[in-house]
């Protein structure tokens, strides 16, 4: 081979060839699309919500009725026709459903994950995993009427005073809905715990229970916490099931009082559905309150995600 041939061979540029440039641009545009969409949605939420508040509305040239930002954030009464926009009313209902579903999903989800990761035989796994995936795939509207038609009547046997629409059955059904999420993310975290640690435990004379609870769960803790937060974000944002099961009458409930769970209320997402289904006039105060609620919801889930990332970073174990 002559020197000339060798030179052409190794000096041909491939990095900036048209084909490389084209593919790179294509992939960049695909990736950029999600960023653009996110920014647009946030911008829309913020500007529309700004039109709702008396503090910011004049800056945007909005005339007509507006609401005080203080009343919005601290009021405990929600009545659109009466001009009362106390978002705490809706937040309290959302918080109740989130807490209630956490009480159900966290223990059951973690226990399922421990079983799948540490105890289950190949056969049991091959049955349980698809079952969980199906549970995750059930349309949320189905969960909603399941709550209304089966869970609430069953609960009324135990609690005769329970309302047709109540927070308890909504919490239970959302809890069931997010079990697969807790279970599968926690199980991934537990399966990622190196086998050497289990071997070390067994070699010390640990029982299966010792290894599962004393070694695997602590070692997978960051992943397990992340699963909680992601699942709870899902519970906060859950719409269809709570719209059906929790009712449509907004009232402020004390989330830490167990008796509140027997009553119905209006979670944030359900309130937004209600607003959209009602005869709200475009541009009216009720219409703009939709974006204010949306913004609050967005901020809450954003905070949850930030916490989740922080926890995952802070407690990640490098094995």
């Amino acid at each position: 081979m002559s020197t000339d041939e060798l030179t052409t061979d190794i000096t041909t540029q491939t990095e900036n060839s048209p084909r490389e440039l084209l593919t790179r641009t294509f992939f960049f545009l695909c990736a950029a699309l999600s960023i653009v969409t996110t920014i647009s949605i946030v911008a829309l939420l913020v500007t529309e919500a700004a039109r709702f508040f008396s503090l910011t509305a004049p800056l945007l040239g909005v005339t007509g009725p507006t609401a005080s930002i203080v009343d919005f954030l601290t009021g405990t009464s929600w009545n659109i026709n009466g001009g009362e926009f106390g978002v705490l009313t809706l937040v309290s209902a959302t918080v109740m459903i989130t807490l209630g579903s956490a009480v159900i999903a966290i223990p059951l989800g973690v226990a399922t994950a421990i079983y799948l990761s540490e105890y289950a035989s190949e056969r049991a796994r091959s049955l349980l995993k698809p079952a969980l995936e199906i549970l995750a795939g059930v349309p949320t509207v189905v969960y909603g009427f399941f709550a209304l038609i089966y869970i609430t009547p069953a609960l009324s046997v135990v609690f005769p005073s329970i309302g047709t629409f109540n927070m308890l059955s909504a919490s239970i059904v959302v809890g069931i809905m997010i079990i697969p999420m807790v279970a599968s993310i926690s199980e991934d975290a537990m399966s990622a715990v190196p086998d050497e640690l289990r071997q070390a435990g067994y070699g010390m004379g640990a029982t299966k229970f010792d290894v599962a609870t004393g070694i695997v769960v602590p070692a997978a803790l960051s992943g397990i916490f992340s699963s909680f937060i992601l699942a709870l974000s899902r519970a906060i944002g859950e719409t269809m099931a709570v719209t059906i099961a929790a009712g449509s009458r907004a009232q402020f409930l004390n989330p830490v009082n167990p008796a509140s769970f027997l009553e119905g209320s209006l979670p944030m997402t359900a309130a937004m559905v209600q607003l959209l289904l009602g005869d709200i006039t475009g541009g009216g105060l009720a219409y703009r309150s939709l974006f204010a609620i949306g913004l609050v919801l967005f901020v809450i889930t954003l905070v949850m995600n930030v916490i989740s990332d922080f926890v995952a970073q802070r407690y990640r174990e490098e094995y």
Partner: protein
Amino acid sequence: MSQNSTNKQNRNERAERDESADPTADGMDIQTDVSGSVAASAGGSPTRETVVSAKHISVWYGDDQALSDITMDIPERSVTAMVGPSGCGKSTFLRCINRMNDLIDSARVEGDLYLRGKNVYDDDVDPVALRRRVGMVFQKPNPFPKSIYDNVTYGLKIQDKGGDYDEIVEESLKRAALWDEVKDQLGESGLELSGGQQQRLCIARAIAPDPEVLLMDEPASALDPVATSQIEDLIEELAEDYTVVIVTHNMQQAARISDQTAVFLTGGELVEFDDTQKIFENPESQRVEDYITGKFG
């Protein structure tokens, strides 16, 4: 580094003490220089009781036979090395002693293995209880993602053993030649330590509940030469109180630290088991000689 010298110093002191305490001590002194006196290696020493006794042990993984008909007696308070090429079954044999093979679904063990006269494969033996009497150190250092202190006390906690944990932690870490390096950071994670320190932590963890037998599966193969030499010194010391069974790839290591050597060759066959000095200087089997001198394997 300083630890290493302290180590040797300790050992020398202890050796001197042993000699002065009992000048007639026969083969019990575990000074394991191969160049040392014949009395140092004690495979045939009648004074040493057998702790682990394997009778016709065979192991299959599925249809593949990993060990075939192993019979050997391991004497107490000495270092027994298992050497041989990869896949010869030496680790498998080690894992038979504390029934770690039970954890592998496809593994099947035949034959009898006695620990102080009790067949560990009897139906009434609980492998969990067995493993509490037989400690194990693995190839890759595997401290728990817990504090150094909690790593050492782990065995005591799961066994509901009482006692002064602070004292046991100090004692175990001292015996593992790690105390001076970590005494001010017992609350920090075991994963913060270097590889060699982690392995010594694993040794401390294994000896804290005071097992009778200590199994070591290539404990130094993932470590650098300095850390390896520390671990080797440590193993020699541990053999004063424990029956140590060590699997190693490293012939020189076996020659340096063991009293008895078992040579496994491909096919899961135990070809020769004798005093280390005999194995390395004058093996019975031509195959063993070929393996040791590097003709194959």
